[in-house]
């Protein structure tokens, strides 16, 4: 009797336990666990009422933190023409895809009156979501919370989501809007920055890292974006500098506005720190979405391919390039005539405009394009152009994106400023990047290919897989005028009419050497092709290169001339 009673009680308890465990799976926090134990003896009705109460409490707690710095601070943010951190994330990600973590993280600083300060989410929102259906990790600094200043916990939220991105092999997007280090936290804030930089470096070449500058980003903070792959800026909103106008004026007496020192346009056009420039935050988000659709989401994947499309052929490819090598044209028209649907996403559009880089698709697959731009500075190579192209080539190689090089350049930019700015070591970056890349590398020489620039622009000698040249290509050791002046110096000097003789000799040189056939006779060019055949040959070359297997000697890493 006693035994059966115990058995009955035990069965009842077991049932209750099973029920409790089921609930536990839904609400696995300690608080609720304790509460569950306490209410095990209560009836069902009361149980659900209290659960509801807890849900309501959670919702309230969340609502407070989601307000960030509060209504006044949000008003200020909007008055500056800026969106709030949360609105930015929601605008960038697919609808209803954002999931936030670490909402209730709090800072631990006790000095300088910080103990009583509650900072919503410690000034940064972190989470995961999708863009065009692709999963990504994201964080956004919240300027309404103590100026988005970076303290240790703020930084740890960022490093946590960065670690997550690296493990899950998904892109990591950081939205920067911060006054800088939280001075009250002292060197703990510096530690925070350092931990972010370390992760930026570890993730480099493994997952795409994107920085969006939507507010101030000053001092040490600038180095996280600088270490990432793509930096987006927006006119009137982005400001980046190491030392701001105040410090510069106090120390050096130089007066300059924030905008002129490190505004969006400056970084897009002068410094090259920014890769994409937009006039509004929404335009900027559209650019990010387009980029994400074009790049692989880790170094172990290929970019998602889409339905192949023919170019819209806005212009007949044969009529784009003037026959006179001295006349300019826009090389992007050639790219548009080659790519699927004539689409091309240009990177660094304003900086070093004498070389064009960006992504387009061929047969539905993402391709990296590098092209000299005769419309600007005659398409010469210089410090900035080499820097720009070299880093892009490294990016393509790291993420398995084949590279198509379109060449039409007269040589390196002459000048004291260039030599003193280090055109030797900057130019070397390009040789290094092309030589080191093992992705399929295809070059089409459109017109001029002279001297050292010919070697640098993915020549056969640096390991190009396919070298094509249009019939008007001039592949020569230097421009015909220069070459004739040296080779026929004596004849020209001794002639009665020096100019006439020079003209004659230049003409002779052009006929004999300024063509693609000398290089073709040596096998440096694989095929001389008609412009209209270019797309078909590129598609074929890429098809053939699909299983390219190229090895480099084992090493820890090379020592590029950065």
């Amino acid at each position, binding site marked *: 009797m006693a035994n059966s009673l115990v058995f009955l009680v035990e069965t009842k308890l077991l049932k209750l336990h099973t029920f409790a465990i089921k609930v536990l799976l839904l609400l696995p926090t300690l608080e609720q666990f304790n509460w569950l134990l306490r209410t095990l003896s209560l009836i069902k009705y009361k149980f659900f009422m209290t659960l509801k109460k807890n849900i309501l409490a959670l919702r309230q707690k969340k609502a407070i933190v989601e307000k960030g710095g509060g209504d006044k601070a949000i008003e200020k943010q909007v008055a500056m023409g800026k969106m709030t951190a949360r609105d930015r994330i929601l605008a960038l990600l697919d609808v209803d895809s954002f999931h936030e973590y670490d909402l209730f993280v709090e800072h631990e600083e006790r000095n300088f009156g910080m103990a009583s300060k509650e900072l919503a989410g410690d000034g940064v929102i972190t989470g995961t979501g999708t863009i065009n259906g692709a999963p990504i990790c994201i964080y956004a600094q919240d300027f309404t919370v103590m100026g988005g200043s970076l303290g240790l916990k703020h930084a740890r939220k960022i490093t946590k989501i960065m670690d997550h991105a690296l493990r899950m092999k998904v892109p990591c997007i950081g939205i920067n809007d911060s006054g800088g280090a939280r001075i009250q936290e002292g060197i703990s804030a510096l530690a925070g920055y350092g931990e972010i930089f370390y992760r930026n470096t570890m993730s480099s070449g493994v997952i795409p890292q994107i920085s969006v500058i939507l507010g101030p980003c000053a001092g040490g903070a600038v180095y996280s974006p600088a270490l990432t792959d793509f930096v987006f800026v927006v006119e009137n909103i982005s400001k980046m500098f190491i030392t701001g106008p105040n410090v510069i004026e106090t*120390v*050096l*007496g*130089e007066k300059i506005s924030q905008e002129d020192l490190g505004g969006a346009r400056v970084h897009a*056009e*002068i410094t090259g720190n920014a890769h994409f420039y937009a006039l509004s935050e929404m335009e900027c988000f559209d650019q990010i979405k387009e980029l994400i659709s074009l790049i692989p989401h880790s170094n172990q994947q290929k970019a998602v391919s889409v339905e192949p499309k023919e170019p819209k052929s806005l212009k007949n490819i044969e009529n784009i390039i003037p026959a006179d*090598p*001295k*006349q*300019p044209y*826009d090389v992007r028209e050639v790219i548009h005539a080659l790519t699927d649907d004539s689409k091309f996403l240009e990177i660094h559009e304003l900086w*070093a*405009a*004498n070389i064009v880089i960006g992504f387009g698709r061929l047969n539905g697959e993402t391709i990296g394009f590098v092209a000299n731009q*005769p*419309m*600007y*500075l*005659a*398409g*010469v190579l210089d410090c*900035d152009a080499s820097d720009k192209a070299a880093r892009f080539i490294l990016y393509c190689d790291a993420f398995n994106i084949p590279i198509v090089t379109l060449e039409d350049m*007269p*040589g390196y*930019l*002459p*000048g*004291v*400023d260039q030599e*003193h700015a280090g055109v030797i070591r900057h130019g070397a970056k390009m040789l290094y990047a092309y030589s080191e890349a093992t992705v399929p590398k295809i070059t089409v020489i459109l017109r001029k290919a002279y001297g050292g620039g010919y070697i640098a622009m993915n020549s056969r000698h640096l390991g190009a897989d396919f070298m094509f040249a249009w019939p008007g290509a001039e592949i020569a050791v*230097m*421009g*015909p*005028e*220069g070459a004739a*002046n040296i080779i026929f110096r004596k004849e020209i000097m001794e002639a009665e009419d020096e100019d006439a003789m020079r003209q004659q000799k230049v003409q002779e040189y052009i006929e004999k050497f300024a063509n693609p056939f000398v290089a073709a006779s040596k096998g440096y060019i694989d095929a001389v092709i008609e412009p209209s055949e270019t797309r078909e040959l590129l598609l074929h070359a890429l098809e053939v290169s699909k299983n390219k297997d190229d090895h480099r000697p084992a090493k820890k890493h090379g020592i590029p001339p950065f």
Partner: protein
Amino acid sequence: MQTEKPEYVDFAVTARKYKTLLTKKYKNRKQWVNPSPYDIQSIIPGTILSVFVKEGDVVEEGAPLLILEAMKMQNRIEMPFTARIKKIYVEVGVRIPRETLMIELEALDNE
């Protein structure tokens, strides 16, 4: 970018001139000027703390000319070679930018 017809300029690369556009950065580049050894210029922006010489002085190589404070560091500017001070362009307390002519020298004519 394609709406207006761009105004191309002549741009010389080696022996040939190309029609092209110039970038803002190229237009703003600094022209190279060969520096004269007789011009003592500031190598860093800063403030003049003291001047040790007067116009007309003959100063020995290595002697201090002035102190230029920059980035919390007091830089002692020394005489590059023995010569006469022709003109002093700065005074104590003045804040100057980089590459400002501070002192002009002239050769000693009795040699």
